[in-house]
C-alpha cells in the first residue's frame, strides 16, 4: 500500500526562477532564500519519495480563460516545460506516472472531486521556479501535477482545498503499490501585483499562517478569499493551495524545517512537515 510520508509548503515566483537562471544564489539579496531551501532539499533526498504530488496554479501557460479548469490533473508520463512568454527554461521535462495518476483520478471522482483530466499539461513557474531548489536534475521522482484555479474568481474555498488534500491521502492509501509519496503545495505567500497596493507584503500574517498550518490548519479553512486578500494582498489567495498539502498529512505532524524571507515583492515561505505515522522517512 502506498503512503504519504510528508509535505512541503513553498512559495513560487518567476523572480526565483530568474535568480536561479542568473546564478544569483550567492547574491546577498537572494542567498537567504536559496540557503533556506537547503535543509528541505536534504530531507527530500534522504526521504527519497517514489512519487511527488504537486499542487500549484497555472499562470495562463497551459490554460486560458476560454476554458479555465477549477481543478486539473496531469495524467501523462511526461510533462513538458512551458514557454511563459520569454522562452522555455533549460530543464528536462518532468516525468509523470500515468498509472498512479489515473488511479488518483478514479479515486478523486469517487470522492466527489472532479478534475479536468489532462494527458498533456505543460508546467510553468508554479512548479518549476522552486523545483530546482528542492532537488537536482535529473528529477529524482515522477511528479503528478494538480492545478487549482486561484486566479479567476470564483475560486474554490480554502475548506475545499483542504478537503482535496484529504481526498488525495485517501487515494494514496487505496493504491496497491508500495509507493512512498510526498506532497507539495506551492504559492504565495503575501503579495499583490497590481494597483497602488503593488508590492504589499505582510510578514506577521505569513508567519501566523505558518504557525496555524502546522498546528491548527482548520483555523485557516474557515477564512474567506477576501480575508486572505485583505491580509496578504490579492494574489496571495493562492496560499489556499498549501491547505491541500496539509490536508493530505496526519493531524499531528513533525516539523522538519521552516523558513521565511521577504526581500522584494513576495513573502517567501517554506515549511516541511513529516507525517507522524511514518517512523523512518527513508524506509
Amino acid at each position, binding site marked *: 500500500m502506498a503512503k504519504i510520508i510528508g509535505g512541503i509548503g513553498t512559495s513560487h515566483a518567476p523572480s526565483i526562477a530568474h535568480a536561479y537562471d542568473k546564478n544569483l544564489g550567492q547574491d546577498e539579496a537572494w542567498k537567504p532564500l536559496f540557503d533556506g531551501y537547503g535543509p528541505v532539499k536534504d530531507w527530500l533526498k534522504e526521504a527519497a519519495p517514489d512519487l511527488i504530488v504537486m499542487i500549484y496554479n497555472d499562470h495562463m501557460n497551459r490554460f486560458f480563460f476560454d476554458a479555465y479548469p477549477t481543478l486539473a490533473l496531469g495524467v501523462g508520463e511526461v510533462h513538458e516545460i512551458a*514557454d511563459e*512568454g520569454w522562452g522555455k527554461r533549460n530543464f528536462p521535462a518532468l516525468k509523470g506516472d500515468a498509472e498512479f495518476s489515473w488511479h488518483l483520478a478514479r479515486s478523486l471522482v469517487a470522492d466527489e472531486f472532479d478534475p479536468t483530466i489532462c494527458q498533456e499539461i505543460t508546467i510553468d513557474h508554479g512548479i518549476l521556479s522552486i523545483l530546482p531548489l528542492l532537488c537536482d536534475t535529473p528529477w529524482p521522482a515522477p511528479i503528478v501535477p494538480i492545478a487549482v484555479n486561484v486566479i479567476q*474568481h*470564483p475560486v474554490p474555498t480554502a475548506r475545499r482545498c483542504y478537503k482535496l488534500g484529504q481526498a488525495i491521502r485517501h487515494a494514496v492509501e487505496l493504491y496497491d503499490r508500495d509507493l512512498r509519496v510526498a506532497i507539495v503545495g506551492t504559492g504565495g505567500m503575501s503579495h499583490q501585483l497590481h494597483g497602488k497596493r*503593488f508590492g504589499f507584503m505582510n510578514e506577521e500574517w505569513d508567519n501566523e499562517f505558518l504557525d496555524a498550518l502546522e498546528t491548527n490548519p482548520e483555523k485557516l479553512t474557515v477564512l474567506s478569499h477576501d480575508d486572505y486578500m485583505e491580509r496578504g494582498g490579492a494574489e496571495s489567495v493562492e496560499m489556499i493551495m498549501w491547505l491541500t498539502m496539509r490536508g493530505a498529512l496526519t493531524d499531528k505532524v513533525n516539523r522538519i524545517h521552516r523558513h521565511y524571507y521577504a*526581500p522584494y515583492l513576495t513573502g517567501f515561505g517554506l515549511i516541511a512537515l513529516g507525517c507522524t505515522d511514518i517512523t523512518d522517512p527513508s524506509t
Partner: protein
Amino acid sequence: MSRYLVESGGNRNLPDTFVFTGERSRKGYRLNKFAMSLTNPDNRDAFRANEGAYMDRHHLSEAEKAMVTARDWDALIRYGGNVYIMVKVAGTLGVTLLQMGAQMRGQSLEEFMATRPGAAARPRKE
C-alpha cells in the same frame, strides 16, 4: 451576508485592489487572449515588428490598443487585463514586473526599489 457572497472573492472593496472577477475576465477577454498568444515566440516577433497590425489581427478595440501602446499597466488591469497575462505583453516589450509595479504605484523604479527590504542587502553600486 449569504454564504454565496462571503465565499466568492471580490466583495469587500479592498483598497487599491482589482480582484480578477468574472466581470473583469469577461470584459478583458479579447485583450487577454491577444496577450496569451505571446507565449508563442513567432507571435512575439510579429507583435514587436508591428504592434498595431498584430493587435488589429486580434481585433482589439481602439481603447484597448491605446492602453497597450501607452504601456498603461494600471489602466489595462483596471479594465480587465489579468496581471499574469499582462506580464507577457510587458516581457515581450522588454518591461519587467518591477517596472510595471513602480509605474502602477506612481513611482520611479529607483523610488520603488528603495521601499523593498531586499534593497538593503544589495550593496549599492556607484
